[in-house]
């Protein structure tokens, strides 16, 4: 009695012209998972890796042990968090707009994922280092990275801290705990582990945080990173942002038969938790726990942030070709801004009016900086950076052959 061998090809729940369908996604109730001790081992992590840590329930209440874990100084942190997210949205909106106007070559939004970088960054200390992908600009916003620098890079003008060398969005901000983004997916993940090993060797009390998308977990650097972290046990938090898509490719092509990405990590003997990434409180709570755990010498820890990429992959992408147009609205974990807002109103520390006012203020702030930065040139109205910049920084000291080339160029 032999069955036929047939290859398997993973499919998303719905394609364009179909109704969005997230019925296969199991959303556990908020508040049911406890806060594990920092000694948590991989073998004891299955509940956290297969479950979903959530604090905000459908009514907008903060419930369960993780809510208690961050009960101290929460109001302040929530006000800050909402502000970070609103600012992030304003920035994304304005820069998308700039690209549409031809003022920059490229932009990429993080819509729907603002809680993750925002909530995580606010738990870090000065000197800790993120190793981000191109969709973690929310880390920069929450690190109070000057908007002038952020936007300068988008316009590749004189305000660009990287002097036009990198693609817009590929920021680098050492002083703000943000490692230089690489276009090559995955590479930063093992570098984060190396940085963390450096922290341990120096005993400086700092940690590193790696960031990777669900699609890029398939890259081999993901394996390099997890294996190295498992062997040497440095203070690193390994974040996986599972936003269901990798350009046009459904997350099932990256996960294969693994139930969750957190489960994949457990195979390396590294404990892992899966968290509702659209729940700002859950982000704050788990980030705080994980960062503290790493800093206190309990070794590496991984977090799968479960979320949805509401925006197109980038300004070069049109998702209506591969997924239902309104899929984002059907996402069962909602929108992080709306959810936090609802909670804060319920909690009595926020109102619709303050929200509208805050949105307007932030938009104005962003637009003011944008206007100022655009004065230094955009794609429509370029004020070129010196071509000689190309040769600076290839090496610490410019070798003879680069000097000759610069000369040939006329500089």
């Amino acid at each position, binding site marked *: 009695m032999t069955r036929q061998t047939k290859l398997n090809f993973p499919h998303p729940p719905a394609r364009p012209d179909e109704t969005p369908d997230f019925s296969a996604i199991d959303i556990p109730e908020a508040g049911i998972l406890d806060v594990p001790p920092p000694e948590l081992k991989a073998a004891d992590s299955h509940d956290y890796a297969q479950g979903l840590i959530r604090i905000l329930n459908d009514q907008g209440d903060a419930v369960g042990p993780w809510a208690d874990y961050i009960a101290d100084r929460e109001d302040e942190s929530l006000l800050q968090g909402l502000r970070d997210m609103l600012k992030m949205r304003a920035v994304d909106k304005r820069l998308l707009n700039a690209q549409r106007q031809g003022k920059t070559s490229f932009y990429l939004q993080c819509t729907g994922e603002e809680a993750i970088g925002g909530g995580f960054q606010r738990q870090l200390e000065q000197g800790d280092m993120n190793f981000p992908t191109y969709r973690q600009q929310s880390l920069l916003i929450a690190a109070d990275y000057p908007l002038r620098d952020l936007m300068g890079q988008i316009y590749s003008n004189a305000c660009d801290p990287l002097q036009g060398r990198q693609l817009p969005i590929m920021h680098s901000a050492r002083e703000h705990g943000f490692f230089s983004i690489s276009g*090559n997916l995955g590479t930063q993940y093992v570098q984060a582990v190396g940085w963390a090993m450096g922290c341990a060797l120096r005993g400086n009390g700092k940690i590193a945080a790696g960031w990777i998308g669900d699609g890029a977990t*398939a890259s081999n650097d993901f394996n390099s990173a997890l294996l190295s972290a498992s062997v040497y046990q440095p203070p690193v938090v390994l974040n996986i942002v599972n936003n269901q898509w990798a350009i*046009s490719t459904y997350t099932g092509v*990256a996960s294969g038969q693994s139930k969750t990405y957190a489960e994949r990590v457990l195979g390396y003997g590294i404990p892992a938790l899966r968290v509702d990434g659209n729940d700002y409180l859950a982000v704050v709570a788990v980030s705080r726990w994980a960062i503290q755990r790493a800093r206190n010498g309990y070794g590496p820890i991984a977090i799968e942030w479960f979320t949805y990429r509401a925006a197109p992959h980038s300004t070069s992408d049109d998702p209506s070709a591969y997924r239902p147009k309104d899929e984002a609205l059907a996402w069962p974990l909602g929108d992080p801004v709306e959810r936090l807002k609802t909670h804060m109103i319920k909690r009595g520390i926020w109102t619709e009016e303050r929200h509208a006012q805050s949105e307007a203020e932030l938009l104005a702030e962003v637009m003011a900086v944008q206007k100022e930065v655009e004065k230094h040139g955009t794609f429509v109205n370029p004020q070129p950076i010196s071509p000689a910049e190309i040769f600076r920084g290839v090496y610490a000291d410019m070798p003879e052959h680069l000097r000759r*080339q610069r000369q040939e160029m006329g500089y």
Partner: protein
Amino acid sequence: MARMSMIEALRSAMDEKLSDDASVLVFGEDVGFFGGVFRCTAGLQEKFGEERVFDTPINESAIVGLAVGMAAQGMRPCVEVQFADYVYPAYDQITQEAARLRHRSNEQFTCPIVVRMPTGGGIFGGQTHSQSPEALFTHVAGLKVVIPSTPYDAKGLLIASIEDPDPVIFLEPKRIYNGPFYGDHSGKSVPWSQHESSEVPEGHYTVPLGKAVVRQPGNDITILAYGTMVYVAEAAAKQAGVDAEIIDLRTLLPLDLETIRHSVEKTGRCVVVHEATRTSGFGAELIAEVQEACFWHLKAPIRRVAGWDAPYPHAQEWDYFPGPERIAAALKLAMEE
């Protein structure tokens, strides 16, 4: 005959081979349902099913590694690496496995795979969407390295590559996917439909690997170019006002030295152009061969015009790109010597 862009021509080649050979497979990141970020495989999954055309995880090493295993069994995978800049994770599988399998197994196993990848700059892609890594493959015995410059050649060369019994690195100059590019980035872009070389037969034909073509005959100087640079060279020759013979190499490995020698023996002068960084670029190999083969005919040193030895910048893209001015200057220099 139909008018096709290079993208359509490439798609047509894959369509043709998927139709006439059941062992041909097409896969890579986003190439299945969506049809590739440059749309080269659009519609193929729908037509041939997902057992023939499918999406892969983001792991270039796995894409090529799987292809090697399939090819050893007799399949003919034609895989896509989304940008040439992302081929490096697959470098081990390509150079140590695909390239060597026939030789090391004394021909028990062979590796007829094609690895397609968009190459080169000019689209404001910054350092990780603009690279031209051809020289990293021409150094590897066992590989063939192909790069078309017209829709007609793109289809014919891709069919020949899929039918080739050995592994082929197939570089697609993305700047000319939709139309020829003469190096004037501020000028209006011309679609392929307005260019003669977009006349592409519907059915099966091949352009043989290992054969260069003289794109423009001339008497004063030979320009060796490939991909996008063929057009830029044409513009440069015009600009410099020299009667240049422009050779489009089409296949870099194995190199058609005969066509080159023939030309340089006639002109006595030679300029080599490519977008890749200069040092140890493929231009070096061309110069080494030409000076050895044509030494006694050379009237001036062979000049290189290439990308600067720096990462391809985003903002200063056109200062980096070896455009018509730089090539024209080299042509003039070579003519004066």
